[in-house]
C-alpha cells in the first residue's frame, strides 16, 4: 500500500536544526528592524535597554530583547503594536476577553495567508487531503477558531462545512448527510457532540469521521481517549493564540506526543516565569513566542503565560519541528486555593480515572470567614449509580482522597444530578471563583 505523505510543507517541517536556525536568524534580523521602524511602543522598550536593531544578529541574541506581556497588549490597545498602516490591514480577530480587556490583533493579507498555511499543516498532519470533508464547529466571528480552521481547510482543498458552534443536532445531521471526515472544534464541544450522538442512539461506526482537530482550551489525555472512543476518530491537538495569529502555531502529528511548533514562523522559548531567564529544552517553564513573519501584529518575545516543556529530536512522523507538551494550563487558569496552585486539568485527570466515563464537573471556589472553600460538583451518571448512600459516600471520599494526594489540599466533592451543570457549546466553564480578592 502506498504510504500517504503527510506534510504540507516538507521543506520547512523537516528542516535540519542548522538550516532552521539560519532561517530563523535571517528572519529575526529583518523582523526586529521592521518592529523598530514601525512600532514605537516596542522601540521604546528596546531603547530603555540601550538596544539597537544591529545588536540582534542571530537567534543567539534573542534573549537580549525585552518581553511583551498581556499587560503590554492592554496598554497598547488598540493600535499601539500595529506594524502596518491600517489601510494595509484586512482583518482583525479578538480574544475572548475572559481575563480582562479584549486583545485585538490585526492582519494583513500576507498574515492571513501565513496563518491559514499553518492551519493547513495541522490538517494535513491529521491526515487531511482535498478528498476530505472538514466540519468546522468552532465559533466563527472574532474568535480565531472558526476562521482559522476554515481558512486552513480551504488551503488544503477540503470541502469545508462552516457550521460554527452550537445547534448540535444540526451538526450531527450534516455530519451524517454530508459524510464529514474531519471535525474541528473545542474539545469540550467534541465531547458534547459525542455524548449527544450516544444519546441519539447513533453508532460512531456509522459516521465517516476519521479525525478531529481540537484546541482553544486545555484538555487531558483521558479526555482525548474519551472523545476518540465516542466519535470513533483519532483526536489531534492544535495550539495557538490570537496574539500570534490563532490556532496553528503548533499542531499534533499521528504520534500524539506533543505539538510541533511552526518554528519557521514562530520562535519558541521557555523561560523561568519569575526571573525571565531562558531555560534549556526539557525544562518546565513559561512559553514565549517571537513571530518572525507577521506584518501587522509583529510580537517579539510575547509571554503566553502557558506553562509547558519543549522537546527536540526527530519525530517518528519525520518532522524536525520542536515539540511542545500540552500546556499544564495557562497561568490565567491556575487557581490559588489556600495558597496552593491548582490547575483544573489536574482535577479532570483524577475524575476521569475514578469514573468510567468522563464526568461533567465544575469547580467552585469561594472565601468564607477568610478561608477558601473548594467545592467540586460532579455529575452522577448511570454507570456510577447505586441504590445505597454508602456507595456514593465512598465515591466522594475516594475522589477527595485522590485529589488530596495530587493537589495537596482537600476539596469537598458534591455529587449532583445528571445534566445539572450547564453544558457549553464553546469553552467549558469549569471554574467559578466567587472570591472577591481585589476590592
Amino acid at each position, binding site marked *: 500500500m502506498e504510504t500517504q505523505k503527510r506534510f504540507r510543507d516538507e521543506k520547512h517541517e523537516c528542516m535540519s536544526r542548522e538550516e532552521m536556525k539560519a532561517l530563523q536568524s535571517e528572519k529575526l534580523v529583518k523582523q526586529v528592524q521592521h518592529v523598530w521602524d514601525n512600532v514605537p511602543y516596542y522601540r521604546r522598550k528596546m531603547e530603555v535597554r540601550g538596544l539597537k536593531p544591529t545588536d540582534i544578529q542571530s537567534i543567539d541574541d534573542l534573549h537580549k530583547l525585552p518581553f511583551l506581556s498581556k499587560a503590554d497588549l492592554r496598554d497598547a490597545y488598540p493600535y499601539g503594536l500595529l506594524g502596518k498602516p491600517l489601510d494595509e490591514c484586512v482583518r482583525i480577530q479578538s480574544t475572548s476577553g475572559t481575563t480582562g480587556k479584549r486583545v485585538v490583533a490585526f492582519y494583513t493579507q500576507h498574515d492571513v495567508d501565513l496563518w491559514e498555511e499553518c492551519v493547513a499543516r495541522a490538517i494535513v498532519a491529521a491526515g487531511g487531503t482535498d478528498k476530505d470533508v472538514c466540519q468546522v464547529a468552532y465559533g466563527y466571528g472574532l474568535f480565531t477558531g472558526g476562521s482559522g480552521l476554515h481558512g486552513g481547510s480551504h488551503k488544503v482543498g477540503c470541502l469545508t462545512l462552516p457550521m460554527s458552534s452550537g445547534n448540535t443536532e444540526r451538526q450531527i445531521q450534516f455530519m451524517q448527510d454530508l459524510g464529514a471526515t474531519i471535525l474541528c472544534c473545542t474539545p469540550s464541544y467534541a465531547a458534547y457532540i459525542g455524548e449527544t450522538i450516544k444519546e441519539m442512539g447513533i453508532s460512531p461506526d456509522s459516521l465517516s469521521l476519521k479525525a478531529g482537530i481540537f484546541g482553544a482550551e486545555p484538555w487531558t489525555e483521558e479526555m482525548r481517549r474519551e472523545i476518540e472512543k465516542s466519535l470513533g476518530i483519532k483526536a489531534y491537538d492544535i495550539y495557538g493564540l490570537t496574539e500570534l495569529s490563532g490556532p496553528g502555531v503548533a499542531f499534533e502529528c499521528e504520534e500524539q506526543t506533543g505539538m510541533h511548533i511552526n518554528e519557521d514562523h514562530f520562535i519558541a522559548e521557555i523561560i523561568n516565569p519569575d526571573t525571565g531567564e531562558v531555560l534549556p529544552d526539557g525544562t518546565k517553564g513559561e512559553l514565549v513566542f517571537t513571530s518572525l513573519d507577521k506584518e501587522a501584529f509583529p510580537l517579539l518575545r510575547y509571554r503566553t503565560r502557558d506553562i509547558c516543556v519543549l522537546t527536540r529530536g526527530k519525530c517518528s512522523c519525520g518532522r524536525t519541528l520542536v515539540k511542545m507538551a500540552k500546556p499544564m494550563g495557562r497561568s490565567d487558569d491556575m487557581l490559588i486555593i489556600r495558597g496552593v496552585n491548582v490547575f483544573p486539568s489536574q482535577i479532570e485527570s483524577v475524575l476521569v480515572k475514578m469514573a468510567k466515563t468522563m464526568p461533567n464537573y465544575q469547580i467552585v471556589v469561594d472565601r468564607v470567614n477568610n478561608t477558601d472553600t473548594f467545592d467540586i460538583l460532579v455529575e452522577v451518571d*448511570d454507570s456510577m449509580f447505586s441504590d445505597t448512600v454508602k456507595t456514593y459516600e465512598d465515591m466522594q471520599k475516594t475522589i477527595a482522597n485522590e485529589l488530596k494526594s495530587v493537589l495537596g489540599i482537600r476539596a469537598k466533592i458534591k455529587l449532583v*444530578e445528571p*445534566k445539572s451543570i450547564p453544558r457549553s457549546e464553546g469553552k467549558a466553564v469549569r471554574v467559578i471563583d466567587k472570591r472577591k480578592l481585589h476590592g
Partner: protein
Amino acid sequence: MTVKQLSVFVENRPGRLSTITRLLGDNGVNIRAMSIADTKDFGILRLIVDDSEKAQKVLKGENFAVTITNVMAIKILDQPGGLADAMDCLYKDNISVEYMYAAFINATDGTAYLILRVDKTDDAVTALTEGGFKLVSDEELKSL
C-alpha cells in the same frame, strides 16, 4: 422471587420530589412503596412502582440517574411480633438487612407488606419461603 426497585439520585433542593412524583403521576405510574435515604447534599429515592420499565424510561428522559435493583417484597402479619418473625427467619441464616421500608399496599386481611434489601438475596428468598412467608412478584404487585 424479587421485585424491581428504582433508585433515583436526587439533590437536596426544593421541588425535586415534586418533579419526580408529578412526572410519574402524569405518565400513569403508580407508586406502591417508597423511601428516601438522605445525606446532607443528596438523597436516594427508592421506589416500587406498578410499571418499573416505564418509570425508568420516563425518569431517564428527564435526565435523572436511575438504577434498578432487585429487592424482596414480603407479606407479614400486621400484629405485634409480625416483623420480628420475619427478621428471626433471616437472622437464623445469618442474612443481613441492608435496608427496608413499608409499602403503601392497603391489605384488608390484617397483613402488611415490606420491602427488603439484604446482602444475600437468594438465601433470603429461600429462608423466607421455607419460613412460610409470602413473597410478592412484580406481576402480583401490579394487581395488589
